[in-house]
């Protein structure tokens, strides 16, 4: 049952929110031990919230467009009084005294937070294996990863633990796991969704977005959470254009990005899915052509300078002084060092060191400064492409889900999982992944639709069409 159908039924009293929640908690109970999608299942509070929704309906009130719909929250979104860990030892047990804007908007729309989902520590990773609390497994094949970093949210939706989930996407952390788990995932335009209460990884790239079983449900959740927030200075002031509900693509100009489709190591089935989706769109009346966005090939390198640089600064505050883990030392500096040594995992430490180095005196121009220039060139190249095309098409990830442990010893191989998604973050644009059949080992494949800043309406039209064309 889709989120929209659940909400419609709950709003008119056909179904109780409580029964919806109980049903999903039962599904969680059945499979969560095997999958570990959650750091915390919020059973009691979910039931209480559901009862409040039912009471509102009984009083003749409308709880809102997400009435009674369970929503899984990535565990880097602050929830007042509920532990928020970023899957890191350094934040274990910390309970934020405030609620993230997106979570509040879900609550205000009648949605029901059902749990906090697992992630790669501080959202740094592409497999959810970098969690301090154990890896999440892919519901389609538990020997394989769900992707990452929002692997818990993707797995939760794919396993039927929740119809909707929220994640964050810094270089592909929503889209890549969505593709690997066979669900829809959206990275909205930078600034379209408030980051207030999202624990920062790389502030200029981070963006919150929805996971859903269908494109329509993803639209429902996105329309609930987006829009200006005075608490986030980078949030866009102009009201978002409605996403609509038509899959009509006739007359749309769609470009297949060569650099993202011909990447090294791409599985043939993945490339075939993009081509098949493109052919379908063409028959539906779109003009489809291949297009070059040359600087995309530098995206990965630029990203692995900019994101760690910002992370090195964003993660400085975990120093043992005010909250979270503290490991005592002889003086403050030693306490800081011991706390951080014990509290952060290997990948987080690797990126803090990379980023610190990239910003250091004498290296700034060669690394961080140069990466920002590449970013400017990527934005320019995309702008050129969007002069001729309304949206662009590419694979979401080069491969289907890989086995646990396959890439943990080789960070560069892991980083390549995001090669198709990173350019969108660098440009501040929007993108969506839609499941499109299966590839190797019968595992889900995702097709990515990229759109310019604020291009969500066209992007969703094309996504709906692809969903209809999917085998």
């Amino acid at each position: 049952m889709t989120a929209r159908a659940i909400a419609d039924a709950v709003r008119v009293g056909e179904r109780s929110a409580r029964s919806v929640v109980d049903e999903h908690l039962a599904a969680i109970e059945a499979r969560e031990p095997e999958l570990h999608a959650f750091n915390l299942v919020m059973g009691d509070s979910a039931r209480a919230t559901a009862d409040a929704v039912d009471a509102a309906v009984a009083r003749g009130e409308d709880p809102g467009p997400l009435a009674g719909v369970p929503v899984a929250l990535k565990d880097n979104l602050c929830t007042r009084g509920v532990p928020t860990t970023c899957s890191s030892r350094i934040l274990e047990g910390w309970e934020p005294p405030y609620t993230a804007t997106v979570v509040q908007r879900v609550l205000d729309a009648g949605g029901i937070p059902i749990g906090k989902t697992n992630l790669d520590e501080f959202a740094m990773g592409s497999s959810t294996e970098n969690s301090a609390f154990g890896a999440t497994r892919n519901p389609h094949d538990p020997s394989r990863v769900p992707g990452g970093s929002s692997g818990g949210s993707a797995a939760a939706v794919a396993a039927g633990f929740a119809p909707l989930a929220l994640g964050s996407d810094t270089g592909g952390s929503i889209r890549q796991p969505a593709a690997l788990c066979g669900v829809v995932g959206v990275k909205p335009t930078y600034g379209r969704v408030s980051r207030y209460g999202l624990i920062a990884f790389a502030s200029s790239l981070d963006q919150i977005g929805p996971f859903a079983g269908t494109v329509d449900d993803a639209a429902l959740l996105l329309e609930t959470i987006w829009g200006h927030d005075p608490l986030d200075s980078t949030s866009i002031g102009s009201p978002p254009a409605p996403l609509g509900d038509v899959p009509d693509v006739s007359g749309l100009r769609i470009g297949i990005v060569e650099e993202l489709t011909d990447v090294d190591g791409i599985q043939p089935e993945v490339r075939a899915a993009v081509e098949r989706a493109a052919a379908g769109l063409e028959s539906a009346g779109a003009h489809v052509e291949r297009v070059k966005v040359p600087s995309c090939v530098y995206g990965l390198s630029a990203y692995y300078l900019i994101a760690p640089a910002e992370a090195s600064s964003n993660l400085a505050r975990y120093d043992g002084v005010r909250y979270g883990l503290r490991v005592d030392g002889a003086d403050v500096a030693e306490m800081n060092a011991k706390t951080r040594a014990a509290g952060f995992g290997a990948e987080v430490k690797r990126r803090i060191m990379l980023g610190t180095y990239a910003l250091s005196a004498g290296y700034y121009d060669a690394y961080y400064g140069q990466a920002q220039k590449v970013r400017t060139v990527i934005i320019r190249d995309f702008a050129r492409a969007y002069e001729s095309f309304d949206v662009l098409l590419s694979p979401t990830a080069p491969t289907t889900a890989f086995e646990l442990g396959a890439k943990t010893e080789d960070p560069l191989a892991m980083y390549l999982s995001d090669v198709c998604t990173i350019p969108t973050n660098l440009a501040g644009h929007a993108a969506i992944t839609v499941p499109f059949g299966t590839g190797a080992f019968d595992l889900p494949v995702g097709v990515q639709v990229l759109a310019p800043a604020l291009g969500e309406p066209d992007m969703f039209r094309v996504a709906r069409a692809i969903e209809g064309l999917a085998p």
Partner: protein
Amino acid sequence: MAEYEAVIGLEVHVELATTTKLFCGCPNEFGSEPNTNVCPICLGLPGSLPVLNRRVVEYALRLGEAMHFDVPSESIFHRKNYFYPDMPKDYQVSQYDHPICVEGWMEIDGTRIRIERAHMEEDTGKTQHIGGGGRIHDASHSLVDYNRAGVPLMEIVSHPDIRSAEQARAYVSELRGVLQAIGVSDVKMEEGSMRVDANVSIRPVGTGELGTKVEVKNMNSLRSLGRAIDYEIARQIAAVESGDRIVQETRGWDEAAGVSQGMRSKEGSNDYRYFPEPDLVPVAPSDEMRAEARAAVPELPAAHRTRLVAEWGVADQDARVLVDNPALAAYADQAMAVGAPGKDVANWCTGEILGFLNESGLSPEVLPLAPDGLAELIGLVADGTLSRSLAKDVLDECLREPKRPKQVVAERGLAQVSDEAELAAIVDEVLVANGDAVEEYRVGDEKVRGKKRGFIFGQVMRATDRKANAAMVNQLLDERLS
């Protein structure tokens, strides 16, 4: 021995007197219970984001206007990264290579001091070390109060155009006057709302290049700023004379001991790894904001002094004292506006009234004597009703009780005796009663005559309860003693 000149640049940090902090809605208040003016944003809790306080930009624009700065169309914030427990995010949000104000100047006694920049930044919290006499190395533990974290600061950095401790003091004093006049800060050095660091170097007179500079910190008054700079200049000259090299370092001024000491440098030199703050957008003040800022800049101290001297005949020194006390200057302005002569107003204001204000701790706005009351008092002296001496008594009463000068004169029967016949009779009586003094006056030299004349005058005043018209008494004495 070579002649040296000092080359001094000042970095001044000023806390802005906004209602709320730089990036959140917490109160910007001094002296609250520790850790009560805090929220997720100024505590730097995970997930929180800064939102720039518009008022801070307005204040920066006023400063830009008042001190002849360029304000580029856009400025940006950077992060200054270093670990310190009283800094909640372990980075300070500050401005770096694109500050809001660039290249301004102030004129100090006819010399133009160029000011490189002024930028916005957030203050840190305060750490208190417990045990070990409050010093970090011997303390058993430390407590941090984050009430000050996120309080808005402006850092104002001069070019090394200052040549003496005296000039440095004059610069800071003038800067304080400007900041006060434009209403952006309390500028209290003693409370730390204005903090001054000095970069000092010396060079032989006539050479152009800069010597190695030493930064001196911890001066908490204008006096201590002057002492610290003089000390540093003397220290550097002595070092160079004895063949030593000046080491670039930061020294802390010890006011009680009257010396500065090298501060322990943090391991190696700090690399702050500045980069643009991604959580904030560029600051691009609109034309309206700029126009509002221009309109909000009142008459500045220099212009005010000039006006008092030129238009009101106030003495230079009195003008300076008045303008250094803006509320008193406003009081004087109002008295002049109702017609009292500026010179007299300035005399009373910088004399008896300022004395009373200092002694009572009151501010001019709350004095029972309104400015037009002072004008009334001055009028009573001018028309001969009161002697200057009695006028002081009347003023004293009017400063303590809500009474008009004329009312006090009436109540106490203080009106000056100006009746010539009446005064002549009294003078004659006094001369008779003090025949010895009169005789000594007649035969004495210049010095004795002056003394005796003063004595006789005093006796006349005494005989009239000081109500005698002094000018008339003098005239009568002139006639009778010649």
